[in-house]
């Protein structure tokens, strides 16, 4: 009785989708047809998570959200299905699993790159201002690379060669934290193809410690 079976599953599917959609509508702005920043804020407070918590960023990544501060219905559906959740409580639990998923090396770089792209709010924007970068670095890498990030953020704030950071520089920050020994910076070679901003950072560090 295949028909019956598929009926059941599709019914179940439809039922599951219904729940997801219902959840979506709880937070969506009806005139736009998507969840806007206000909605997200509400979602956060319901999840018991701070608006600026990195787990929200991870959720956005999982949803493959295109625009910062907004979730479309498609994104919501695809994302929650991928998480295998259809209710608020399930979503809450899924958040901690999500953290582990992101930390998997195969996902981490993807998430890291996503985080930068997520900040490009204007069309044709290619770089992000220093302030936001510092916050983002703290959010995304702060836990894993606390000392490096603190030092790097300090440098970014005092230097004035660069007012914005582009994606090439961004991706190299992660590389730097992963590859370069800290705080001695012993294996950093300025003749290599590191972005100039990191050359300058290393020089600044070396001067501070001499």
């Amino acid at each position, binding site marked *: 009785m295949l028909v019956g079976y598929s009926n059941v599953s599709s019914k179940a599917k439809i039922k599951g989708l219904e729940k997801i959609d219902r959840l979506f509508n709880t937070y969506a702005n009806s005139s736009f047809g998507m969840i806007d920043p206000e909605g997200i804020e509400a979602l956060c407070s319901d999840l018991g998570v701070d608006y600026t918590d990195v787990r929200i960023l991870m959720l956005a990544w999982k949803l493959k959200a295109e625009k910062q501060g907004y979730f479309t219905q498609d994104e919501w559906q695809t994302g929650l299905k991928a998480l295998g959740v259809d209710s608020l409580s399930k979503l809450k639990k899924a958040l901690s699993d999500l953290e582990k998923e992101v930390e998997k090396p195969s996902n981490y770089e993807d998430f890291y790159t996503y985080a930068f792209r997520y900040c490009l709010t204007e069309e044709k924007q*290619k*770089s992000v201002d220093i302030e936001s970068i510092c916050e983002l670095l703290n959010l995304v890498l702060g836990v894993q690379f606390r000392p490096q990030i603190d030092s790097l953020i300090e440098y970014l704030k005092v230097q004035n060669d660069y007012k914005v950071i*582009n994606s*090439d*520089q961004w991706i*190299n920050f992660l*590389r730097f934290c992963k590859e370069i020994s800290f705080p001695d910076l012993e294996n950093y070679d300025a*003749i*290599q*193809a590191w*972005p*100039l901003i990191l*050359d300058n950072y290393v020089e600044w560090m070396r001067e501070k410690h001499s």
Partner: protein
Amino acid sequence: MSNQKKRIFQIEAFKNRVVVDPKYAEKTWKILEHAIHEIYNHNASGLSFEELYRNAYNMVLHKFGEKLYSGLVTTMTAHLKEISKSIEAAQGDLFLEELNRKWNDHNKALQMIRDMLMYMDRTYIPNTHKTPVHELGLTLWRDNIIHSGKIQSRLLSTLLELVHSERTGEVIDRGLMRNIVKMLMDLGSSVYQEDFEKPFLEVSAEFYRRESQKFIECYDCGDYLKKAEIRLNEEIERVTHYLDAKNEGKITHVVEKEMIANHMMRLVHMENSGLVNMLLNDKHGDLGRMYNLFRRVPNGLAMIRDVMTSHLRETGKQLVTDAERLKDPVEYVQRLLDEKEKYDGIISLAFSNDKTFQNALNSSFEYFINLNSRSPEFISLFVDDKLRKGLKGVSEEDVEIILDKVMMIFCYLQEKDVFEKYYKQHLAKRLLSGKTVSDDAERSLIVKLKTACGYQYTSKLEGMFTDMKTSQDTMQGFCSSHPELTDGPTLVVQVLTTGSWPTQPSITCHLPFEMSALCEKFRSYYLGIHTGRRLSWQTNMGTADIKAIFGKGQKHELNVSTYQMCILMLFNNADRLSYKEIEQVTAIPASDLKRCLQSMACVKGKNVLRKEPMSKDIGEDDSFFVNEKFASKFYKVKVGTVVAQKESEPEKQETRQRVEEDRKPQIEAAVVRIMKSRKVLDHNNIIAEVTKQLQSRFLANPTEIKKRIESLIEREFLERDNSDRKMYRYLA
């Protein structure tokens, strides 16, 4: 053999054995022994060679070769022992002579004996592997005479004493020496080496060690080298006269080591006479001698080269950083040219044009010329000076020589693009003020620059020349199409193509009516021929000749700048003008205005204007009048032309900044060019390639190149490879 039959001629062995008389051998030997005695006693003439030969032959044939041979050895040995005694008995000088004589005798005897015993030499001896007669004779001589206890050491010491005497200036019998030494050589190379050469070399080394020590204490470098050279030549000569020529190298090596190698350092650095002193005073003879001597020892030339290089770098550095000299650019460059010429002379005359020295010279010059970042500017000023007046009256050949010398210095510059900027500025001023001494010289220099740096370097400069020529033609056309303009002020226009000439920001001031009308006529004429072009008058660059009549009727022709002309013409309609009025009517920029007024009101001999108050600076509340009392003994008075000067600090900064800005697109263009052809390339290789491509213009900074690459990445001309972040990829 009388076995002749009329049959086929056959040679058969003896059918019947010849009975050999046992005493036969002894008898035969005695004959031969006797002959040997006679030979040694100089009585050989009475002997029959044929008979002796036959006897020896028979002995060998009858298997008595052994007896013959051992007999020979015994007999000869006995004779040699006697000879030995007579040599030992010789006194003093006669020792060598006796030895020589006896040796000659022995050789003669040996020759005869060998001829006599030739059959044995050819048959018995090879079969039994015994020493051949001649060699035997030498060996026996060696063992019994040369190596005899009483002779061996005496021989050596006699020879060494003779050499020593000759070294200390005495004359010796060289022929005798030669013979004795040849004797030792004939006895075999081991004899020569052990019994003479080795000790000779040791003693010589000791001799020269002492002598060099003495010399180094009392002679200065130049004299010491002369002495060393003399000694070296002496030894070479000695070899040709009586030593083994094949081993000349051994004794010269001793002299080189003891006299030169061991004291090289001290000689080179000797105060007041060493290498540096020789270089400073152009002592070509001494330098040449040092070069030729030091060339013979390991690292000799390297030492000279190193000391020369560090000295040159030091003096060069002082030259370019000497504050006094920096005040006069022409003097600065002249001094560089002089230094180059000096060292070229030294290298060609004293160091036989050695390439490695030439390279050391080049690298040193390149090093210190670039220590001073104003070198490019100064070289351009030097050229400017020469082309304005320095080359006046100089023949064409000499002009070429001077320009070639300047080009050599130019090639040492790393920042050739800086030079180009200054050269353009200075050339523009020369061309526009008509102040160049020789058009041919200008052109010649452009050609040389093109050869050194490529077509692109000089294309704009050549454009400037073209503009000048074209302007002349344009003027001709203008004048012939406006014949009515022959009365009234004459206008000479030079039309400059923007882009070829150094850009100057200009605000056109207000020209006096007579001039502006004329300029309009020209403008419409020109635009009539060249539609689609735009003309803008560069009032900050022109000149004017004005005829003026002063209070007491003094007539003068004043040569002034365009700005100054505008100011002066105002006084045709007013007796007194304030600074502000002048500024307003002429619209000349303030700083230029002040400079113009200053040169017309405050400079003695050029004060065509009078200023109230009479202070030396121009104040905004000053008033100006014509100086009715103006006096000059010249009819034509030149009031302040703009001449190329050393830039002031802020101007220098500005030029430097413009150069830096210009470099950025050049670097980017190089990066794109390279990446386009290679598609994928790693970081270090890009840096290397870019630097190489730009080398002829300037030394590219790796950090700057990196910045440009990052900018190109941002603009999506390039990207980093995802897996290997050191690699860049070209994005089509």
